[in-house]
């Protein structure tokens, strides 16, 4: 029982990171219908921002987190404006290839600038472990969980209760109708990318703190798993993406705890394929008729 709760906590901490990534991925996918391969690399940028500002500018955790979110948000806006906006009316595959191109560019550009060595993330917060009846939980895990919770609630607030959020929802439902209603499409898409990328940046700083090691290629697999999480939860549902992220984290931890760590990623993909076949709308997604 103790190991179960221990693994539950570990799974939830890892799941928080996936949840943050999945939320960002989901809103970007929802509005641009684009598999944003560069999302994972924005997360990597966030981790490196944390690394350099904490090490060289002696930022605290909160400052590093907030500045990473701002910088990554900006990066997201720039990526969208340069690489995706010119292709908005082009075939979807073309935009997908530029997304891959951006991802290559960020990965290799960073490898070139900072070398591809794995680095130790500075321990800006002293690790303390609390013993809750045999279950160990560290303050870093708590911080990750709380930060994820706050950011998720914040995103839900923005999307459901603000004017910008309403614009985002309407653009993701119907581009043309939204622009007829006087919504500035470019502006709204930019804001969406900024929000999504900011969440990815926050996830980057948090994963640095948790796993303690970062490298330029760290974003590739989490980026894909974030999409899996978003599909699992249901594209278009914010609580769904968060729950999907937590589930993927729990699943990975469970498979690892059972001693099949080599098959950790395979388990995620099997779940994905099964979900797509059995429940194509995801756990919380709307049932929708395929438009042709």
């Amino acid at each position: 029982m103790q190991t179960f709760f221990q693994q539950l906590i570990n799974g939830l901490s890892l799941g928080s990171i996936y949840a943050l990534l999945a939320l960002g991925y989901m809103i970007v996918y929802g509005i641009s219908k684009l598999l944003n391969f560069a999302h994972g690399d924005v997360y990597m940028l966030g981790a490196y921002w944390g690394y350099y500002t904490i090490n060289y500018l002696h930022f605290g955790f909160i400052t590093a987190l907030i500045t990473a979110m701002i910088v990554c948000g900006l990066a997201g806006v720039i990526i969208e404006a340069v690489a995706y906006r010119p292709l908005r009316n082009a075939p979807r595959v073309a935009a997908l290839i530029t997304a891959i191109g951006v991802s290559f560019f960020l990965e290799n550009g960073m490898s070139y600038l900072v070398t591809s060595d794995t680095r130790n993330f500075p321990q800006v917060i002293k690790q303390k472990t609390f013993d809750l009846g045999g279950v160990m939980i560290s303050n870093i895990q708590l911080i990750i969980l709380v930060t994820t919770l706050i950011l998720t609630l914040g995103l839900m607030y923005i999307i459901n209760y603000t004017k910008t959020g309403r614009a985002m929802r309407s653009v993701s439902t119907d581009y043309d109708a939204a622009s007829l209603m006087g919504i500035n499409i470019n502006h709204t898409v930019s804001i969406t990318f900024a929000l999504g990328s900011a969440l990815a940046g926050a996830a980057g700083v948090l994963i640095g703190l948790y796993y303690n090691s970062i490298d330029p290629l760290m974003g590739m697999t989490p980026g894909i798993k974030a999409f899996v999480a978003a599909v699992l939860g249901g594209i278009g549902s914010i609580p769904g993406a968060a729950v999907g992220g937590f589930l993927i984290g729990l699943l990975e931890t469970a498979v690892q705890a059972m001693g099949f760590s080599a098959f950790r990623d395979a388990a995620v993909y099997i779940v994905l394929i099964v979900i797509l076949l059995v429940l194509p709308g995801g756990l919380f997604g709307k049932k929708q008729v395929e438009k042709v």
Partner: protein
Amino acid sequence: MKKNWKYNLCWLILMVAGFYLINTLMLAGVINTFIENMLVTIGINIILAVGLNLVIGFSGQFSLGHAGFMALGAYATGIMTQTMNTAGGFYLSILVGVVISIVVALLVGIPTLRLHGDYFAIATMGAAEIIRIVINNMKITNGAAGLFNIPQFATWDVVYIFVCLTTIVTVNFIHSRDGRAVISIRENEIAAEAMGVNTTKWKLSAFVLGAATAAIAGSLYASYLQTIVPSTFGIMESINILIFVVLGGLGSITGTFVATTLLGVLDAALQSLGVLRMVFYAVALIIIMIFKPGGLFGKWEFSFKRLLTKKQDGDMKEAGKESK
């Protein structure tokens, strides 16, 4: 059949001439090992990209799992030629790889081809990753260390012949009645179904044919390089093949040939730049896609028939397709 013999003869002459050109250049010493290596890599990539173009460009199913099928072929050859160290064993291993690949493609395709667009892409990518992870953890495949000292039967001429063979099979499939059924699914699935096209069947056959050619390419890859590791066949490889296809133009075999050759040469030319090479590659990719979102050739196809007859009706048809 008979009325096309002139054009088929032209293609045959072109293929034989290409073979002799490379052979002569090699004998003359113009093509050194480095260039030969580049040519073989291009050839293998062409087989892969033509197969993927059939799946994505002609049947319209966006598959991201091509490298998984390539891995099946590569490992079939890698494992079998260790014990059967003869040319016969090599060709038998290609056959076995193709059969395994077809079976796996059926297993993957039958459930997942119901999915559309990005969901199908992600599902096939997941399937390919599962194949890779299983290979990574098996005894017979030597796990993550991979196989080495695979006997080399695939020299450049074997690869050249296989490039011609797989392309002929694929192009003939596309130009047949079945191929038109496949293309109709890409254009409009509901309309195709209403006209009596069994969409599941033809989507699946395109997918399976693509997988089979990928397995052949994998076998050649294993035998030429003599070393294979599971990490080669990851998502990046699938994406690389996808880039060849999209860059050349979805639905243009000519485009696939040109794009694969161009990128192969570019890759070899930039080899000395190290990491910076991939940065340039990425920038080139983004720029080409922004300015030519339909790929270099769109749906345009080189044809001796059009060249020799110069009839307007052929051109008109092409023009109509282009404007779409």
